């Protein structure tokens, strides 16, 4: 079986084809860098994405930016966003600080992507 994948690693957007046998990757073609091969092999088996979104601190209307420190399964993005709404860390929040550890059991931590002093 052949899977056609567009790499999202950089703006080039290489069109990569991955030849599969069941869940096993046989051949990867069309990538212009090693990262593309890595991405395509993962994408063919279990698509992963870096989560980026917003979180609110205790007693604050304005949000602050957060991200996952590694990719999480693509089908968990909506759940991640919903989960983050359940928690309100205290200010100040510092860039790089873990604001939600091991989200949804993915092993990925949600970290602040900006400093946020509060309102």
């Amino acid at each position: 079986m052949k899977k056609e994948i567009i790499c999202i690693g950089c703006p080039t957007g290489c069109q990569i084809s991955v030849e599969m046998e069941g869940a096993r990757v046989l051949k990867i073609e069309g990538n212009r860098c090693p990262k593309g091969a890595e991405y395509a092999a993962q994408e063919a088996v279990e698509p992963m994405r870096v989560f980026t979104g917003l979180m609110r601190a205790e007693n604050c209307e304005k949000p602050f930016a957060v991200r996952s420190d590694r990719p999480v399964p693509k089908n968990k993005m909506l759940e991640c966003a919903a989960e983050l709404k359940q928690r309100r860390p205290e200010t100040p929040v510092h860039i790089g600080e873990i604001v939600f550890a091991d989200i949804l059991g993915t092993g990925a931590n949600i970290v602040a992507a900006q400093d946020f002093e509060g309102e």
Partner: protein
Amino acid sequence: MEAVQTDLAIIGGGCAGIAAALAAKGKGIEKVLILERSPALGGVLRQCIHNGFGLHTFGEDLTGTEFAHRYVGMAREAGIRCLLRTFVQAFRRNEEGIELTAVSREGQFSVEAKAVVLATGCRERPRGNLLIPGTRPAGIFTAGTAQRYLNLEGYLVGKRIVILGSGDIGLIMARQFILEGAEVLAIAEIMEKSGGLIRNIVQCVEDYGIPLYYRTTVSRIYGRDRVEAVDLVTVDENRNPVPGTEQRIPCDTLVLSVGLIPENELAFDAGINLNGKTGGPEVTERFETSMAGVFACGNSLFVHDLVDNVAKEGTRVGEFAADYARRCME
């Protein structure tokens, strides 16, 4: 107020302006001053919470906010003077150099500089440019405005959203609207293909199953106080609507992502020659505009796809401006 004296004045504290300031400082120019109208440095990066920034500059996949944090940190470390909440109203050339008029909460004042870098960024093409007939209800936003409301202020602009145009900001916002609990009913693109990056089509549109219609535009907006629906219509090869193809989509919000224009009112008022195609100033190979000692870089010169390219250009232009300022001092 007394005039502020500086060697190099940089108008705009986004990535281009900061990069130019750092480069000029690195070339030994002591007095570098950034004038920024908003309350913080960073420019549009402050509202870009998505990743994909800095692959070239830092070899890392950063969010816009993380990228901005690094540049703002470098500016602080280099001791670059910044005037925030300061709006430059005009500038002109005189015998000594360039005189800028600015206004801040303290009032109006002048800045006297040997050289100036224009790093004023770009703005979005608004609805008025599109000539969409219909009423004028609330609920029509440009994508960047919707992005600012959500990411900086915390307001989601609507619950049932149609997006016109498939520029990158529109695609990025489509995903974010969904993550924040809104529905994105359709993206309409008048051309045969998107002007956005292909990776954004994949990770923002296809990942979330959002319908993206090519050769389609919005032909009418309905609603008196608030948007109630829009008509989508197919267009022919001359981009004229094909009668009978209208499809009404009930929605509460229309988001426009139909292109960016370099922001050059200041340069225009100063009599600097602008290029009709890019919307930016005409520059020499050293990025000097038609006014001696005034340079331009970043999205005010032309709209760049990548912040990494803006940073690189800002660095070069900062060096050129530094050379000019130094020659004035000799």
